[in-house]
């Protein structure tokens, strides 16, 4: 039961560039479905999908839910609060119990890096990683690639700088892998305390000053300062962070070319990004959100079906 993507989507690191292009190309026709007055196709009719969210999320959970519903799947949302997780049930037990109710896919978000893979190895359903700790958030990486491609065309040789809190960011990791797979040049920019040790080994350029990044880049992917994950003093204050690393209109006006501005949300306006940039002409932040639904539809569609053992049984039936 392997689809073109395998059983699960856990991260972009081990996908091939062909697989990434397949997902992006498949997402194109799905954009149109969300523009119809009846926003629904029957492709996943009869599939049951559980959205297992152990961490808070608005955008990603709703985006997945729209994607599932627009493909006619049946969905159930489980969050950690208000479920038996609070009574101490383990992740595997929760998933096995869900599986015993005959589900087809699990979309999981968890604060532990590797949680999605841990689950994927233990259940038969397809698993989609919707963000695991500081590891990966593959559908976010893919929707960023799609948005960049919509605006910049072929991404080979295009320069994308990921700015800010790279250390805590699974979005950063998925972006780095994805961008490198499609041949883009990748840089990161942020205070050293918020960049992982040996980040250069990812094969990325490191800018210590936001001005250098703006001078170099075709696009900036501005990350949220994840204050909730910062247990130690990584930065002196968010005001100071804004003064030194904030993406402001004044800084962008000095850029040698128009720079596309992406942000995975939720934004801290006035910290990593100023309001007039977030709402400005170069911002594609809401386009990212629109593309998110199409990308998730493409991933769900590609992971569903394609079960050779069923095809064998149905042999003789022609398409």
């Amino acid at each position, binding site marked *: 039961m392997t689809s073109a993507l395998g059983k699960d989507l856990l991260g972009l690191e081990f996908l091939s560039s062909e697989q990434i292009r*397949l997902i992006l190309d498949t997402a194109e026709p799905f954009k149109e479905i969300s523009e119809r007055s009846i926003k629904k*196709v029957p492709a996943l009719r009869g599939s049951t999908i559980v959205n297992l969210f152990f961490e808070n999320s608005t955008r990603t959970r709703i985006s997945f839910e729209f994607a599932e519903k627009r493909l006619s799947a049946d969905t159930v949302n489980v969050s950690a609060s208000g479920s038996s997780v609070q009574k101490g049930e383990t992740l595997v037990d929760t998933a096995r119990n869900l599986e015993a109710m005959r589900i087809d896919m699990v979309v999981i978000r968890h604060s532990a890096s590797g949680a999605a893979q841990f689950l994927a190895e233990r259940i038969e359903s397809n698993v989609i990683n919707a963000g695991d700790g500081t590891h990966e958030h593959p559908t976010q990486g893919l929707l960023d690639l799609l948005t960049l491609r919509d605006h910049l065309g072929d991404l080979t040789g295009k320069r994308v700088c990921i700015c800010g809190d790279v250390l805590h960011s699974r979005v950063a990791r998925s972006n780095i892998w994805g961008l490198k797979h499609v041949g883009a040049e990748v840089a990161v920019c942020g205070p050293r305390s918020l960049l992982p040790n040996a980040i250069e080994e990812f094969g990325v350029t490191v800018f210590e000053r936001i001005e250098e990044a703006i001078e170099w880049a075709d696009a900036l992917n501005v990350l949220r300062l994840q204050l909730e994950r910062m247990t130690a003093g990584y930065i002196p204050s968010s005001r100071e962070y804004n003064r030194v690393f904030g993406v402001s209109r004044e800084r962008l006006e000095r850029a040698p070319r128009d720079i596309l501005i992406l942000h995975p949300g939720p934004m801290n306006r006035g910290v990593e990004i100023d309001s007039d940039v977030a709402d400005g002409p170069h911002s594609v932040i809401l386009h990212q959100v629109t593309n998110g639904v199409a990308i998730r539809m493409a991933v769900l569609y*590609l992971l569903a079906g394609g079960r050779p053992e*069923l095809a064998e049984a149905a042999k003789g039936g022609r398409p």
Partner: protein
Amino acid sequence: MADEIVELNEGTDNLVIVGIQRRGVQLARQICALIEDSENARILLGSLDITLYRDDLQTIGPRPVVGATDIPWGIDGRNVVIVDDVLYTGRTVRAALDELADFGRPARIALAVLIDRGGRELPIQPDVVGKKVEVEAGGRVDVLVEDLDGRTAVVITDAERDDER
């Protein structure tokens, strides 16, 4: 076929032509051009990709490339003619009917195909047929069009022998 479609529709009023991806789209474009030429009228031309409406996703798996569906205007109350290259089992047309229903409620839907090769698995029949050919279950019928294949031809391959008719 273009003339028959106009006759069937009793003119070009309210006529909408929708091709099924991919060869049907090319044929629909040609038919549309012929009608516009002979009737001196503008005809609405759309395209439909039925991949997401197939009944075999669970078994065959996803098609690698899903094409574009482009029906930018309402089809309520219009006369829609679906155009495809080859009519075989009828399952593609079944999917196209389902998909059209999600775009509105046409006054009437008709089906025009270049080749009817028999072998239906559903109660679906064409209204306009270019040519009817009996081909056995193992055989293939491929319609080639200039834009995609570099030449215009119909290639029929029987189960046993290769044979271009």
